[in-house]
């Protein structure tokens, strides 16, 4: 009986929410109201950036992105702190059986290509789809492949920590430079160049490259920490 009531209540709730969310009518007329049009217009006219998503993520709402980068940083820090006791025997891994030679040689071949793709994605973040978060994640998958394929593959934890810290510091410093030059944090202080060229958009590509480095270092660190966890 109790279960029946719960199911009934859940059904009513689901029906209600379904009606509400279907009624939102994504893509309809009223979605043109508000700030959207101004974003589309100012991305091209004032920032000279070809990718509106990038301009919103890095410039209009760059403060949010700084926050999100911090969230990732804290998550990596927290994971390292919690798994600390278990990490005393560095060098031994929780994956015990060796990889086949196919995986080993294949990943060696793929690794540079993956890194190159990742770098391409975050360097061209302001021109084509993708950006720092995506590029950084691609690079981290490259390291994941190597860590899975080779028992003795190791990444220097100190190096990762330094890359991650420096990227974060430069992000904040670029923001502060905007603050000093134009009076508001993260404001663009470099010439915006011409639309659709690699050197356009002022600080936007620089910030996205820094985010790429930071995300790559953090995710690699997380993978490394979890992979070497030992009970």
């Amino acid at each position, binding site marked *: 009986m109790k279960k029946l009531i719960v199911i009934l209540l859940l059904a009513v709730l689901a029906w209600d*929410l379904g009606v*509400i969310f279907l*009624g*939102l009518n*994504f893509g309809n007329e*009223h*979605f043109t*109201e*508000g*700030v*959207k049009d*101004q*974003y589309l217009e*100012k991305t091209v006219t004032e920032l000279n950036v070809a990718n509106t998503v990038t301009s919103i993520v890095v*410039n*209009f*709402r*760059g*403060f*949010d992105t*700084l*926050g*999100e980068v*911090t*969230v990732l*940083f*804290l*998550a990596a*820090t*927290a994971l*390292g*702190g*919690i798994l*600390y*006791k278990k990490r005393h025997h560095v060098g031994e891994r929780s994956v015990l059986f060796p990889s086949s030679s196919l995986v080993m040689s294949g990943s060696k071949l793929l690794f540079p290509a993956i890194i190159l793709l990742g770098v391409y994605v975050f360097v061209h973040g302001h021109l084509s789809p993708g950006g720092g978060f995506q590029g950084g994640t691609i690079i981290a998958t490259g390291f994941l492949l190597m860590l899975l394929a080779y028992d003795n593959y190791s990444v220097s934890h*100190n190096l990762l*920590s*330094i890359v*991650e*810290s*420096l990227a*974060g*510091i430069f992000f*904040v*410093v670029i*923001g*502060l430079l*905007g*603050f000093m030059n*134009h*009076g*508001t*944090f*993260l*404001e*663009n202080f470099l010439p915006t160049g011409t639309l659709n060229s690699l050197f356009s958009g002022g600080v936007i590509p620089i910030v996205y490259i820094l985010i790429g480095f930071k995300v790559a270092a953090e995710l690699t660190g997380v993978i490394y920490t979890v992979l070497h966890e030992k009970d």
Partner: protein
Amino acid sequence: MVGTPVLLVVIPLLAAFLIPLLGMIWKELVRIIPGLVLLYMFILSATLLNQVLHTGPIVEVIAGWRPPLGINLVFSPFSGFLVTLMTFIGLMVWIYSYRFKQNVDFEPAKKYFILLMMLVTGSVGIVLTGDIFNLFVFIEIVGISAYALTAFYTERNSAEAAFKYLFMGALASTFLLLAIMIIYTQLGTLNMADIASKMPEMNTTYKITALVFLLTAIGIEAEMFPLNGWAADAYTESPGPIGAAFAGIVAKAGVYAMVRIIFTMFDVDGTMQFMLYIGLITLIVAETTALRQDRLKRMLAYSSIGQMGLIMVAFGIGTAEGVFAALFLMFNHAIIKPLLFFSGSYLVYNSKDKFIHETNGMGKHIPITSILFALGAFAIVGLPPFAGFWSKLSILTAAADENMIIIIALILIVSIIELVYYLRVVNRIYFFKMAEGVEPKKPTLNALFVMVTLGVIILLVGFYPDAITGVLHKASGDLLDKTKYIQDVLLLNP
């Protein structure tokens, strides 16, 4: 000019990224830098608060885009008051735990101080931001730091507490994001002032759905009944100073977000009554549960949840006096509860299970800590002439002005319950014999300094409440003036 509000968020972030590097140079810097940053934040916010009390709110835009295009921060008397309070408590927690884990590994200590600093920064961000998605980001920052700090001892119980907290926090984030999505699809903006000004145009169905989602999400953070199941465990299992930080900083940020949503953004009839009744239920349930606890920190945790309920009741009254009382309660709770957590941690320092009966006879062995605990207990119950008395008096008069007799009666009954369980502990401290084999722990010098400072503030506000009421009146006036908030943000001079 020491700076602008944005530095309250940016400087700690910069420091958080710097600390791992500085730790490679000299390990002690990992402990020192967060303290310097918190000190800077406190000085900056106190200076800015002093300024806005005379000249009116500071609205700061970010990345050069004026609202509603970009993100903005609002440092008004209301938010400024809370930021100053939070940074002060953050500084106190830092001084208290400066030598925390000094003799053990370096790694956990490094994480502890980074996470503590980010906990304060995230809460400050929640209070300062004028943008609802930015609010979400800061809630995430506070959440991640809080989960990690709860699990800090990496034992079975703390892991369970952290998992509960993580689960509820993730649920809160989901609901918050859904609500933000609904609002954005209907109004096309994320700026709080812009949302507030366009709110009358919004379709009622969506408005109510968004409000319910928001209240569910923020209710989890603000420890509202019945969404506060995580809170008692998290307070109990986290390190002592972190319990103080949860009570004094994180819970305040949650209540702030709730108040901002109800008072400024939405215009739905009956939300005030909802807040009043849900606060009352939270108060009664939490205080009666506290009465039945046999562990000290768990009792303090339930007492803290109850106080949050009382603050919601005061906000729910909805008048200027009610808001004033709520802010006064927030101030007192932020000062007194950390004192109780700090001194309570020493009363059961060497005990494994932290039972209340293990405080027996502590009054003879650690007299200063004991007397400060007693002072905190009397103050939070609301005995004159301590600080808590004036806030309880002001909420009762605010309720009396609105003829809410039943509410007055319930608050008084609950106060008696509170008195019973606090006096029980104080009684044990002073009039019971200490059991065999219990070793009292003398507080360190910095812990003593923090506890005495908080105790002195309680006495000062108790004997001379006018020291704080001027600021509180301005802050409550600022919160209630919705039109001015919208104008300040949207009609900003470039």
